[in-house]
């Protein structure tokens, strides 16, 4: 094995975690290679030391903070409950209202643009009568909306 291949397996060798064949190969190599042996000794000094787990300092305020977080979440719980119930429906409801508003607005706008004013409508009716003669149209029944509309139109033209 090459030096690099040997060296990258040294921690595994130290922990005796390689296959027996690999352990033997490395052992044989170390007998004849002072460079790899030196690397092994330095790694051993770093790796095989007593673990100082019991000396890890745990800040005493962690429990206080956890407690405070849990209490804070409890208080928020009621509002979160409402939020969680309402929020999922809020989006679709707003979208539906907007769509309805757009639809109604569109219809209203269309009516405003395309509907002629009363005066324009009356003018058009009179022009049609002049072009085709009043006999062209069937007589409107007396007292009907059409008769009243025609009377208004004629008055408007006279003015």
């Amino acid at each position, binding site marked *: 094995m090459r030096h690099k291949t040997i060296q990258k397996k040294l921690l595994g060798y130290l922990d005796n975690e390689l296959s027996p064949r690999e352990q033997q190969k490395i052992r044989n190599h170390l007998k004849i290679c002072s460079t790899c042996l030196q690397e092994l000794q330095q790694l051993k000094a770093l790796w095989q030391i007593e673990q100082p787990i019991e000396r890890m300092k745990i800040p005493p305020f962690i429990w206080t*903070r956890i407690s405070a977080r849990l209490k804070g979440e409890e208080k928020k719980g009621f509002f979160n409950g409402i939020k969680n119930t309402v929020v999922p429906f809020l989006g679709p409801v707003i979208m539906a209202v907007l769509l309805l508003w757009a639809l109604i607005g569109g219809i209203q706008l269309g009516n405003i643009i395309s509907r002629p004013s009363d005066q324009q409508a009356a003018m058009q009716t009179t022009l049609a009568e002049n072009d085709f003669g009043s006999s062209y149209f069937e007589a409107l029944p007396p007292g009907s909306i059409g008769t009243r509309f025609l009377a208004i139109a004629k008055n408007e033209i006279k003015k």
Partner: protein
Amino acid sequence: MDEQELITNIKNGDNTAFKQLFDQYRHFVYNICYRMSGNREEAEDATQDVFVKIFHSIERFRGEAKLSSWIYRIAVNTCLKRERQKKLANWVSLDILFQNKKEFYPIDHEDAPEQQMEHIQREQIVQGAIRQLPARQKAALILHRYQDLSYEEIAQVMEISLSAVESLLHRSKENLTKKLISLKKKI
């Protein structure tokens, strides 16, 4: 109070029981968080997150796995998630270019005898190299080396197969050896 009783009491909203669970597992959780992050403040925040998650999800704990394995799993997953978020945040803010690289080891240095200082320094070198490992390799190695978990326990905690644990640990040690050799050369 035995483990089952403890869990039942926590599920029933007994805060004293939850405090007891915290006292029992805080060292393990804090150790994992510290070794995963290499930063005391980060470890404190992660420890808080872990216990808040435990509190909220204990209702779903059915006792199929050991309580300790379940807590380890929450701790490892929380740390991995925080690490991903941190990487993303660093990538977005480019803070990684300016962050303080100084790392420390949470041992009481002031009253440490002189011979222990060398020990601490060596451990710092190893810690620094472990921190540079890919996240999952790092988690497996920490659970094995510092928490003394068996391969089977690591497989249970990380929810992977036994052969995946072997492979992770094998690769982590190869990578760590390379890093330690290169670090040693720089020193």
